[in-house]
């Protein structure tokens, strides 16, 4: 199974971009599932369900959403494999702009929008800087000049990333994005032992203390698990 980690500020268009991208995977008979991470509320799972995409959601509630991500990704990947997905996409909102959920061996995509202002690339930390691909949305409603300036700000904080424009409404650019995401040779059975690209800020659980390894063995303190249904092994 392929795994791709999507991240980006709230309302930047992550769900729209993912939905448009998945429709071009469907045309190629690639089975895709999504797990949506959020903090207090999301109804994006309904949008995925409507499109016939297997989906699970996890609300972190009182915990830091990205810590919550790190302590659940292992089980989420197991779920994806049990569902016999070809591709599992995780979607999480970078609520404090400080964290990033990317793992070293897994493709990380950051979605940001042109409307958020040209200082946004400066404000976002590892979520933008450590991404492999940066998708810029809402380009259809701002001027060409603003698009160019915004893209150049992005590339100055993350020169290695591929930056592309995707229109979440018309889907322009989504097919191209899809072609960069799926890798036939990748088969992730488990993410146990993989590492975060960048440590998360300190708080209370083992990840708060700088833990970067994935796996139940490394988790201590305040750990919350998603109810993925089915029997716990």
């Amino acid at each position: 199974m392929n795994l791709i980690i999507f991240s980006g500020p709230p309302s930047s268009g992550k769900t729209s971009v993912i939905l448009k991208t998945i429709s071009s995977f469907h045309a190629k008979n690639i089975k895709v599932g999504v797990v949506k991470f959020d903090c207090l509320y999301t109804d994006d799972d309904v949008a995925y369900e409507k499109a016939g995409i297997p989906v699970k959601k996890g609300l972190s509630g009182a915990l830091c959403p990205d810590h919550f991500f790190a302590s659940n990704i292992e089980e989420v990947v197991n779920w994806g494999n049990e569902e016999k997905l070809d591709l599992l996409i995780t979607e999480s909102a970078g609520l404090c702009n400080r964290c990033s959920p990317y793992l070293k061996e897994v493709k990380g995509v950051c979605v940001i929008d042109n409307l958020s202002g040209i200082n946004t690339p400066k404000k976002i930390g590892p979520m933008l800087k450590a991404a492999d691909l940066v998708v810029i949305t809402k380009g259809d409603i701002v001027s060409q000049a603003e698009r160019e300036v915004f893209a150049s700000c992005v590339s100055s904080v993350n020169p290695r990333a591929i930056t592309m424009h995707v229109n979440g409404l018309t889907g322009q650019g989504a097919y191209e994005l899809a072609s960069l995401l799926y890798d036939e040779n990748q088969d992730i059975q488990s993410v146990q032992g993989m590492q975060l690209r960048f440590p998360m800020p300190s708080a209370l659980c083992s990840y708060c203390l700088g833990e970067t390894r994935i796996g139940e063995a490394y988790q201590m303190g305040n750990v919350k698990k998603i109810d993925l249904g089915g029997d716990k092994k």
Partner: protein
Amino acid sequence: MTYRSIKKLLEEYPFAATYFEQNKLKIDGFENQTFEEYLNHFSEDELEDQAIDKAKLLSDLPVYLDQMRQFLGMENDRKVHSLTILPGHDKSGTTEGFQELTVETSQIISIVGPTGSGKSRLLADIEWTAQGDTPTGRSILINGQVPDMKWRYSSNNKLVAQLSQNMNFVMDLTVLEFLRMHAESRMVQDPQSVIDKIIAAANDLAGEKFELTTPVTSLSGGQSRALMIADTAILSSSPIVLIDEIENAGIDRKKALKLLVTSDKIVLMATHDPLLALMADKRIVIKNGGINHVIYTSDEEKQLLEKLEKVDSLIQTARQELRSGNTLSPDLLAD
């Protein structure tokens, strides 16, 4: 290049300042150190607090400098003279109704077809320089050759600039600040003369003149459109411009197209306005996701265009009269 002091680095690559600034690295007082030495001055707490990835910042700097050098040096060899579309198929799999379509700089091609017929897909194919690897199976050639992959992946060298009806300025800046910022991001040698050129061109297109001190967000629809077109023609690095309908109000569209064409752009224009569509040498008819056929504007159509332009200028005159507070007389239509 990173073994040099920051001062030397900035002397050789002035644009490195943008890298430091965008990454919020205050280098004041550290000019005589190397970038690595500078990064080493941060304490563990500071690194964590500011989410600084030392290794990544250090290894990204040469990548950034390289990209910028390429961007500056490519002015000549990245010149696009022509765009060629080779046929694919429509949604039903039927081969598209043309052999090969080449558009050269300073040419205008119009695109017609109902909403949802596949105009976005055509544009996306061009932007992605499709090589039979998109749903339409089309291929795109640049200067008659299979294009360099840089057009796909480089964020500073996009092939297509877009101008559409829904676009707005969202930044809270004056016209001057706005243009200066765009010029700086394009690393123009003499920003002031470019800014003057854009303002002159924009005011030439707009019905009502505006000043450099006007905030971009308070420009009228026509003024915004005029500024966007002038800015795209003069400052954008993209050699192909796609226009999605230009409104008739408050802007001289004929002049606007002329400006783009004289700036060596290839202009693709989605429009159902006869005045614009007939100005193009060819028009692409899109149906069911594919190019159904290509029409060459006939002499008859060109003659008709002249008549239509006369009708249009009557309407424009009437509009102008109303704006000045005058009454309209039936003489307007007298031959």
